[in-house]
């Protein structure tokens, strides 16, 4: 029997009297142990390629707006493009994920770098900042990202539109995101787990990420100001919320 669902997903502005929690809500889909996998679509003007990517959440500390995990790219192709777009779909992830090749050299050389990693996996460890208005706002304030870069990227997410006006005023500091259905984050890769830094790949940039609490899908855009070739696109992802596994670690 259908029931009426009250949707309170619109963000509200914090009034002076509101001293309660305004951070995004805890979401069981974005918890330690959750794994996402899908296909990374690499595209530029000439051609499109794809490779598989797995993401695993390994740490989550909402109080400090912190999230971390690993990204694993499988069967990294002989990509000759600096740009990639990925979809995650096994559980619920849909992410724009350019596993970014070093761009300081010519495209030809780039190909030879990446050949080394054909049919192997490359794993990186990343740390995330959750935009919770307490620890982090929509303005990055580092990694060479100016407020206009931030706005330009955040506005690529449809779910960001209702927030735009307030973010332009104060970076979103006064927004109440406690009942918002999307969680915005920045993910920054910190190091390669299984290959050396001379692997021909770079992790110099970072990702603007939007996570949907409703369906667990993730969209993301890579930003690296030193990349001359970068562009990214978002596509819908197919996902299904079933047979979810739940693990947990608690450090003492």
């Amino acid at each position, binding site marked *: *029997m*259908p*029931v*009426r*669902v*009250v949707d309170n997903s619109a963000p509200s502005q914090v009034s002076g009297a509101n001293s309660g929690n305004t951070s995004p*809500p*805890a*979401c*069981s889909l974005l918890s330690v*142990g959750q794994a996402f996998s899908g296909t990374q679509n690499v595209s530029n003007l000439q051609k499109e390629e794809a490779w598989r990517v797995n993401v*695993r959440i*390994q*740490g989550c500390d909402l109080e400090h707006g912190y999230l*971390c995990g*690993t990204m694993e790219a499988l069967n990294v192709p002989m990509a000759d493009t600096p740009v990639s777009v990925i979809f995650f779909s096994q559980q619920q992830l849909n992410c724009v994920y350019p596993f970014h090749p070093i761009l300081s050299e010519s495209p030809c050389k780039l190909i030879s770098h990446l050949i080394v990693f054909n049919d192997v996996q490359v794993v990186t*460890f990343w*740390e995330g900042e959750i935009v919770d208005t307490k620890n982090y706002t929509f303005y990055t304030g580092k990694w060479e990202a100016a407020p206009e870069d931030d706005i330009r990227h955040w506005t690529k997410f449809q779910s960001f539109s209702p927030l735009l006006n307030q973010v332009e005023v104060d970076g979103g500091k006064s927004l109440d995101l406690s*009942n918002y*259905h999307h969680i915005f984050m920045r993910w920054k890769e*910190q*190091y390669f*787990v299984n290959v050396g830094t001379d692997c021909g790949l770079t992790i110099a940039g970072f990702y603007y990420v939007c996570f949907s*609490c*409703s369906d667990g899908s993730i969209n993301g855009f890579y930003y690296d100001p030193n990349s001359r070739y970068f562009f990214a696109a978002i596509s819908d992802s197919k996902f*299904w*919320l*079933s*047979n*979810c*596994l*739940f*693990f*947990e*670690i*608690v*450090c*003492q």
Partner: protein
Amino acid sequence: MPTTTGTGTGTGTSTTGILHRLASDDQDVKLKALRELKNQIIGNRTKKLSFLKLGAVPAVAAILADAVSADDVINDNNYDNKNNDHNYSVNKNIIVQSAAVLGSFACGFDAGVQAVLEAGAFPNLSRLLSNLDDKVVGAGARSLKMIYQSKFAPKYDFLEEKNVEFLLSLLNNGNENVNGLGASIITHSCKTSLEQKILFDAGVLKKLTSLLKGSLSQRDASLESLATIFKNNPEVVLKFVGPDSGRALGSIIELVKDRFIRTRLLASSCLIVIRNTSPCYLQDVGIKAKLINTLLELLDDPGQIGEEASFAFSSLITQKEDMQKLAFELNAIDKLYNHLQKGSLHPRRFEGILLALADMCSKLECCRARFLSLQVLNLVIDALAHESADVRTAACICLRSVSRSIKNLSAGYFMNETVVIPLVQLLNDPSTSVQVAALGAISNIVVDLTTRRSTFIRCGGVKQLVQLSKSMDATIRLNALWALRNLMFLAENKCKEGVFSELTAPLLASLICDPESFVQEQALALVRNLIDGCIDSVEYMFAEDGVIFDAVGRQLQSASKAEIGIQGMYVLSNVATGKEFHKEAVINQLLPHADNGTQSCIIKFLQSNDSRLRTAAVWAIVNLTCSSPGAFSRRVKLRDTGIVSQMKEMVNDPCLDVKLRVRTALGQFTTFEDGSI
């Protein structure tokens, strides 16, 4: 020139010689022997022990008792010319010297305190306080003060009104030794908030505040007592820091800069107690930085002050991220490391520095990064094999703190034989606190995300953990299971097989039903991590006639707290990702009592006040009802039990996570209803 050893002849200054002369009938000889004894034992623990073994304390206590009686007789007879009488004067000196000897035995030496108390000297020392002679009063007060500095001293009862009056008289006395005694009594015996309030109401705080302006010993004694009265009593702190006493607080802050290091330490400790009791006070960054810098400077003292400074530093920063950040900015990690590097540290100092480092690294990643870049880890690993159990415990706690970093764990910094082997060895340590601390460190270190857990297994770690999970001590069982649970997180199948064969299904089932609920919770969390989606891992639940699965079901029916329900429901959610047979087993487990009118546990969980439990319960339903051959009949069973009606009441759940998961679950039921029409 006095000798320190040798057999006595009865007349020399040797140990037995002094004892022999203490028994002399000649009062002058006795007095001289007392003085010699006092000089030999002052500050010399070995001598104290040596004389203690020879029975010096009862002998001196008896001398004191006799001298006090003789003094009473003289005073009772109101002898006019007593001050000019040689015997009277010698008797007074014997009282003073015997009291001093007993005080010296008691000073910083618990065995000495016990001996003095057992010899019955305490009442006689107390009587000296009412003597007419100031010297006698001072000697008695000094000795009693030494006794009150030990935990073995008798408890002073502040609930007796006359005792409080007496205490006030001590604090009001003109003799600073007597004031010191009063302060020591407070420091030793004031433990409860009621006692703190009684002392505050009696005006003790005012008196102690006035002593802050007194001599060095009065200041120090006052600071220590003030801290005792403030501790964990925000009401008293509020009254002290309030408008009337703001100046007193200012005096304490000033004393942090005193030229005497003990005063600096005591003033700092007093302010830390005020801050920890009422965090709203002393928030000025200048004061916070002053406290941190003072305590770090005091570490340089080679004596007891240096040892205690690190513990005071820990109490200043523990659990307080802002203080840890400030201390980090003031180079605390580097300074602590410099002390650690000196080597050959006294165990107490070593322990204190390790615990201070542990507190520094307990929350902040920047501290852990600095710790690792300075290579402090190597020194901490060495400390795991220290002869002192306290140092070994502190080293484990330090490792536990540093290894809280998922970033560092993921980089595989800790899972190597240099760290793992000594830690696993400590699981056999004779000290329970070392074992528990080692388990704490291991719990974090096994969260190795680089699939190097084999290192831990090769070192015999799993066998040890399983062994400790059978311990009679519930804390050890808890921590051993905690480590196994984290070890299972995303572990390879081979690792899981190894752990399961060691642990066995019956043992795991019995731990799920452990008498202690916190052990039950860990055991369930372990099982939750064990089931990783592959069918073999789900089958663990059904090994040995499903003994584990049945245990989980029993715990869910009788869950004593939300955490048990949460872990149990996630276990069932994970099992429900298996084959049809597994899903059927879960639904039968969840709805066993539906036919006999008993409320199903899942309905109870959906109605829980704890949103985490509601979320876990909805996830089990989602996994049971998602598209699969047997989903239809399971949906029917769940609907007939009233689950759908219950969930419809939850579509506007105040918790967003619950609300969204309920929508997913109801969506699956709606699909089923549409299909059935």
